[in-house]
């Protein structure tokens, strides 16, 4: 039984949205206009809540006329991605531009290389099939967390197979063309306009390395990387992000078969991850959060352990290029 004063609830993540907005807007102006000498921002808009909040914040910081929302769907994007993105851009009065990246991905061999990797464990996988990568739930016993591929045949038959390391790396490496191609276009437009690129990770994604290095992990400024996902939703409500965006389940929108962030990476719902991460960051014990997330202490311990494991496993993603000798004239 935890001591009463260590127990927390979801209220621990409640923020003052007006104050948080003002701080971010001030920060954006100071960093982008003041330090980087850029006059606006490019934001990749996915139709999700994170990128929608970032568009809104950038529009407040620089004026809607100094924000370019890039819509970059590809052949396997969810059907509602484009519609929601247009809705958000229109809602906040910013210019939007459509860059369908399917042809670029095709030319790079993204789909072909990924499908070849999947065929290493599912020989039948081919045209008309759709797939996603999944992790077991952290709450289902003490299994080691290893990735499987779930594939659906053109006739709707589902198959699941554990990935080999080679197949997993092959799938992820090929799929990462999507995030890296988008970033290439974001910087093209940023250079063309004299803008900075605003990245859209929230704290959960940033902390747990849920991004592609030199893909969606690359940006000049990350306006909401210090906010837990739950807090991003609070900000979204305050900023009047359209309800259809706020009520949409967070997805990766990366694999052809619909895939939640939960089954691909976090293994538990983001509200649970948020509060567990907050408790860990506040040096609170697992018992302090178990009631709030309606899990046993043992299950929360497993989540704490998984958070540490992911931090360690993704430390490489966070590392800037290292110099092996001093260059004191150049800061950073």
């Amino acid at each position, binding site marked *: 039984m935890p001591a009463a004063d260590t127990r927390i609830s979801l209220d621990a993540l409640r923020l003052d949205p007006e104050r948080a907005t003002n701080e971010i807007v001030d920060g954006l102006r100071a960093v982008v206009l003041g330090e980087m000498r850029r006059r606006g921002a490019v934001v990749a808009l996915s139709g999700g809540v994170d990128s929608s909040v970032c568009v809104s914040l950038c529009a407040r910081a620089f004026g809607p006329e100094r924000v370019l929302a890039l819509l970059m769907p590809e052949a396997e994007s969810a059907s509602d991605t484009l519609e929601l993105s247009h809705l958000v851009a229109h809602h906040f009065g910013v210019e939007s531009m459509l860059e369908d990246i399917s042809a670029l991905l095709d030319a790079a061999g993204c789909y072909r290389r990924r499908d070849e990797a999947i065929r290493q464990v599912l020989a039948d996988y081919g045209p008309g099939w759709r797939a996603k990568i999944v992790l077991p739930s952290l709450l289902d016993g*003490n299994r*080691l967390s*290893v990735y*499987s591929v779930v594939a659906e045949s053109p006739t709707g038959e589902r198959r699941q197979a*554990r990935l*080999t*390391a*080679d197949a997993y790396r092959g799938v992820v490496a090929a799929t990462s063309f999507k995030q890296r191609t988008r970033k290439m276009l974001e910087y093209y437009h940023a250079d063309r306009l004299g803008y900075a690129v605003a990245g859209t990770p929230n704290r959960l994604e940033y902390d747990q390395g849920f991004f592609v290095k030199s893909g969606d992990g690359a940006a000049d400024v990350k306006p909401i990387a210090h906010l837990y996902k739950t807090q991003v939703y609070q900000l979204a409500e305050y900023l009047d992000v359209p309800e259809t965006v706020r009520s949409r389940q967070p997805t990766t929108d990366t694999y052809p078969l619909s895939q939640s962030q939960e089954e691909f990476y976090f293994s538990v719902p983001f509200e649970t991850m948020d509060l567990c991460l907050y408790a860990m960051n506040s040096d609170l014990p697992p018992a302090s959060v178990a009631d709030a997330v309606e899990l046993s202490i043992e299950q929360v311990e497993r989540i704490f352990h998984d958070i540490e*494991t992911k931090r360690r*496993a993704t430390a490489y993603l966070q590392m800037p290029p290292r110099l092996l000798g001093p260059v004191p004239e150049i800061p950073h």
Partner: protein
Amino acid sequence: MSYEPSIEDEVRRFLVDNFPLSVDGSAALAGSASLLETGVIDSVGVLELIQFVESRYGIEIPDAEVLPENLDSIDAIARYVSSKRNADGRPDAGS
């Protein structure tokens, strides 16, 4: 007299050869040390380990047996492989 490496020796060699270790990595490879807790391998490393164990020892590891008690230390792997081989009526040696 020829030396036949034990399962422990072979797994340790596989880990040293395939996972860049910290300077004190050899210490982290104590037989009973958790490979995940000590950061020797990550979740992709677990997949590599499974691939190695399955191909080297000719056993199949079903999902239900992908457990820390079977795969998270060199000692655990040796015990697990031995039990699988014994169950198949095969000798317990590493090669």
